[in-house]
């Protein structure tokens, strides 16, 4: 087996003195791989995803990205890590209402490496057209439908060409048809961009479209 893109080793997360939210989770994700995380509400799926994306840190255990332990790095490095290597799609789209769709997509480019900005701007245009939003680039999130907003969020997540795309119930607020087409899009982009995809979902049908399914149950991992 080749070297994993990101790897969790015996990760535990607890809040205060409560029972741990996730406990002793270990997993490895290869580059370009797709993975579904399923489990009942409150089982720690989002927590797991947040830890993978360095939005939160584990109470114990290690997170290794390309063999490097994230724990050794400070906030600035982690921010840069999120900016370059990770893309997020949240259940609530978390688009900025004050910006147009196109501008929202470009938010991660505010701090990119020199020279990338122009490339990213072209890339944004291309991706927007690719996801079928060529005509809605100047619309505000408030003027978009739920599906369109999530597609904008997907483009924003991919704008800096990350290696890892994390989607936390991206279809949660969409109806079945829209949800299906969003997952189609994610899978297609996974292939086109070669980005590893980890998606949390309740829907079994959607989960089955991923290459692997992990089931979380009360913070513990089981095979789906």
């Amino acid at each position, binding site marked *: 087996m080749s070297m994993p893109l990101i790897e969790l080793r015996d990760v535990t997360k607890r809040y205060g003195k409560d029972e741990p939210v996730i406990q002793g989770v270990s997993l490895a994700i290869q580059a370009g791989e797709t993975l579904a995380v399923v489990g009942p509400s409150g089982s720690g799926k989002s927590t797991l995803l947040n830890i993978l994306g360095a*939005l939160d840190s584990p109470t114990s255990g290690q997170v290794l990205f390309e063999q490097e332990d994230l724990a050794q790095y400070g906030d600035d490095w982690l921010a840069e890590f999120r900016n370059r290597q990770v893309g997020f799609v949240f259940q609530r789209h*978390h688009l*900025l209402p004050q910006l147009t769709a196109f501008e929202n997509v470009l938010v*991660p*480019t*505010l701090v990119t490496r020199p020279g990338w900005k122009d490339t*990213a701007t072209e890339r944004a245009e291309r991706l927007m057209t690719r996801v079928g939003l060529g005509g809605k680039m100047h619309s505000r999130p408030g003027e978009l439908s739920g599906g369109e907003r999530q597609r904008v969020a997907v483009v924003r997540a991919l704008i800096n060409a990350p290696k890892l795309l994390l989607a936390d119930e991206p279809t949660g607020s969409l109806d079945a048809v829209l949800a299906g087409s969003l997952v189609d899009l994610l899978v297609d982009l996974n292939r086109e961009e070669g980005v590893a995809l980890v998606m949390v979902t309740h829907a079994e049908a959607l989960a089955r479209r991923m290459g692997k399914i992990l089931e979380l149950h009360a913070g513990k991992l089981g095979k789906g």
Partner: protein
Amino acid sequence: MGKRPLTAGRLIGRTLVFHWRSNLCLVLAVAACAAVIAGALAVGDSMRYTLRSLSNQRIGQVRQALFTGNRLFRQELAELTGAVPVLRLSGIVSQSDGARRVNSIQVLGVDAHFAGLALAPGFTELTNGTVAISLALARRLEARVGDELLVRVAKAEMTGELALNPKGETSRAFRARVQAIVQDDQMGRFTLENTQAPPLNVYVSLPVLQALIDHQAQVNLLLAGPEAGAFPQQLNDRLEKAWALPDRGLALVDLPGQAGVELRSRDVFLPPDVERAALMVSSQAVGVLSYLVNSLSAGGKSTPYSFVVGLDPLLSGMRLEPDEVAVTDWLADDLAITNGARLDLRFFVLGPLRTLVETGAVFRVGGVVPLKDYADPTLTPELPGLSESVNCRDWESGLPIDLGRVRPKDEAYWEMWRGAPKAFITLEAARSLWSNRWGCLTAVRYPPTAGGRSELEGRLTALLNATDRPVFKPVRDDARKAWHQALDFGQLFLGLSFFLVVSTICMMALLFRLAAGQQTELAGILMALGIGSRKVQGWLMAGTVLAAVPGGVVGLPAGLLYAKGLLWGFESLWQPPGTLRLMFKVSLVSLAAAWLVAIALALGAAWFMLRRFRGKPVCRMLEGLEDDEPGRRGRRTSRRLAVRADLARRQAGRHPGRSALISGMVACAVFLLVVVAVFQPHEADPRARASGTGGFSLMVETAIPIGADLSRPGGLEAYGIAAAELKGADVVGLRVRPGDDAGCGNLGRAQDPRLLGVDPEAFRKRGSFGFLKTLPVKKEGSPWLLLEAGLEPDVIPAFADENTLMWGLGKALGDELTYIDERGQSFRLRFVGVLENSIFQGGILISEQAMMARYPTLAGQSLLLIDVPEGNESRVADLLGRQLCDEGAEVSLCAQRLAEGGALTVMYLKLFQTLGGLGLLLGVGVVALVVVRNAWERQGELALLRAVGYSRRDVAGVLVQEQVRLIGWGMGVGVAAALVVALPILGGSRFIAVCWPGPVIMLMTVAMGGLLASALAAWAVTGSTPWNALRRE
């Protein structure tokens, strides 16, 4: 255009515009804050500028000044020191038709050099028969160029209250036409007193004024301009070299027949310090004391009005016992006496304030000497009104001389021998009988062997100058200090506006608090997308700066308007009305400071908000951190169970910080209003002796001091007042050393406050005036005795009232103040007692004795306090006004004076109250803002309430209920706190709440206004259709 890359600037800009409502509120809050600060500072700037311009106009180009009051000196000193000579007298002026009259003016005898001291040219040359008057005087007199005025001036006499001086000779009058009106910058505001009130000046040609008061070529004021005054040390050195005997009213004269030299005084008696020096100059110096004796009688015969001389045996060559008298043969013949006979002397003892007491002494005739050998008229001093008259019938002495007793024989004696003495006693005997306040020698004689005249003069001058030499005062520096050390009105108004500033800060804090959730979420998104937390915080702060900067800019003009309003209020509340004109001025520094502080406060509030999410995991920030707040977690599940009251309570509990801010703000404002209301000065019964009037009903101030004791029938008679007219009245006179007003009425800091010399016994006996605190008083002793307590040398005990001490002088009990006395010696006043606010506001009280010791030539009393039996006030006031007309008496009611003094305190309180009220209003505005914001935030919840059947009124009620609670709490806490502070005081007698209705109405209005605003806001917000809001959730 859509292809443009995104920049941080665009993001910040878009964010600002998107949240324009709350950003607008922020702009307004910053603007309000900047306005309040800029306004207060601009008031300070304007005050300072006004004071500075007025003081510049007041002293013109003058740097140093020497003023000697009643001690006139040679005008030559002006040339010798390079200064400008002025004769400055006090006076009274009226239109010659008597239509208008102004008491207490300053008459300035000036020459051509005076104009050179003005800031602007144009001061007219004055001729005989013309005067110039200051602008302020012209207004008061309604005088125009060409009008004829009657001017009365006080004669500068060192011994104005010595009974030897002819009565009615304390002032002289003249008529003159107004030749010009002197503008403010042409020395039209000239006065040595640090005051803002424009002085009432009459300018007269110097020689004319000198001639009027019989003091040719003499002045009492030297003004050194920029050249002469540049080096004060040099100036004073030159003065010391030039200051000679004539400048003290002394003269060394050669005696006829080369009998030696004699030292005489223009004022009859040689002052004690002069005597001491004169005797020290030479061991051969001998004193002479001549005295006018009313009668010399023996064996039923009597000789009227004769001089008797106390002589040193060295001089007389007679050996006399202390109880022996040598008589001339003329007297021996007249009285038919010989050796061993008893000679009865009757004479007046001279006391202060022209008091005369006739007493007598008996001597045994120890010898008879031939008149022709001893007829030395030079032995007798030159008595005013006496010595120069050819005939006894022309005597015009201040003494009550009964010319009917003068026999033809006496006339003949006077014609032949003038004032040659008729009898001689020993110097010791003479001293013990006739010493008085002014001295105990009329001359000191030096035999030819003691040295030549000029040699003696040099030695004597050097000796005298060591202890008595007036010095130039740095009037320009003092004037500068007066406005420099003045109460900083910028700070004062900042203090008064404190609550307003706090309100604006609360408002900003609240705005940030309200925006916190949304800001946190924004920060969370940006950070999740990989933007560093520092950068994100920087962008958020930049957003605040962008809102705050224009806010500050908008606030500045508003602040200037606010300052104008404050100044206008200040001017119009000022007492007496219409006497204060303030110039508007604001410095860039103040504007910049206000702007920066307002922005800094906004940034501080923003920074404080950012503190909330610093160090929090990004995933939590994405949720807006709201879950932190207690109560939120259960909200979703219990929503359906919500009942109105419960909802409101939980609402308040959910935002403890927000609620505390609002309640706290209301509490502060209420506290302030209540406390200010309670601390209104207490209007005690002004007739009470313990009150600030001392129980006196009338106050008489005279321009020309009264050299008689008006508490005695004799003194009253001298001014044509029958003692019966003042039956039952109590008169207490005070000596006044003019100086700066140190009361609230002086916006600058008094540099040389006015001194009032009082007889402590008079007040002690009456139990007049109340003390706030004093240094320890001996058991059963009156605090008034402290004024006579002996302290260290050169320290004089003093009292001042509370306002004067604290605000006017910035001093406290036990503090000291340094003065320079008439002889150029410095001494210190120590405040040993603080009077309750009184009619003495602006002055410092010392004992009359100390005053006379330090200012011996200050003659007479110019402040009279009179307690007349009730109902007689206006009659007595009329009488005194009439009889003391030539003294320029201004009669006022003590109660009114006291009220005027207190009026300024009331003014400050009013201003404070008004600003506090404004702050409360702002606070209530914030409350309304919070209502709107809460409602908006909880739209879904409210919509749900409506959906399940609550009416719009019910729902609006939920929103308002919380504000009612918050305002209620605030008011309760504020009132309670105020009462805790005020109750002990309310119990005491010093203050009572006299102004309850005002603040209570204000509180109620503001509270009702706030509730109304909240209700309207709630009503408006709940108006939108419930379904929209529900759907958005």
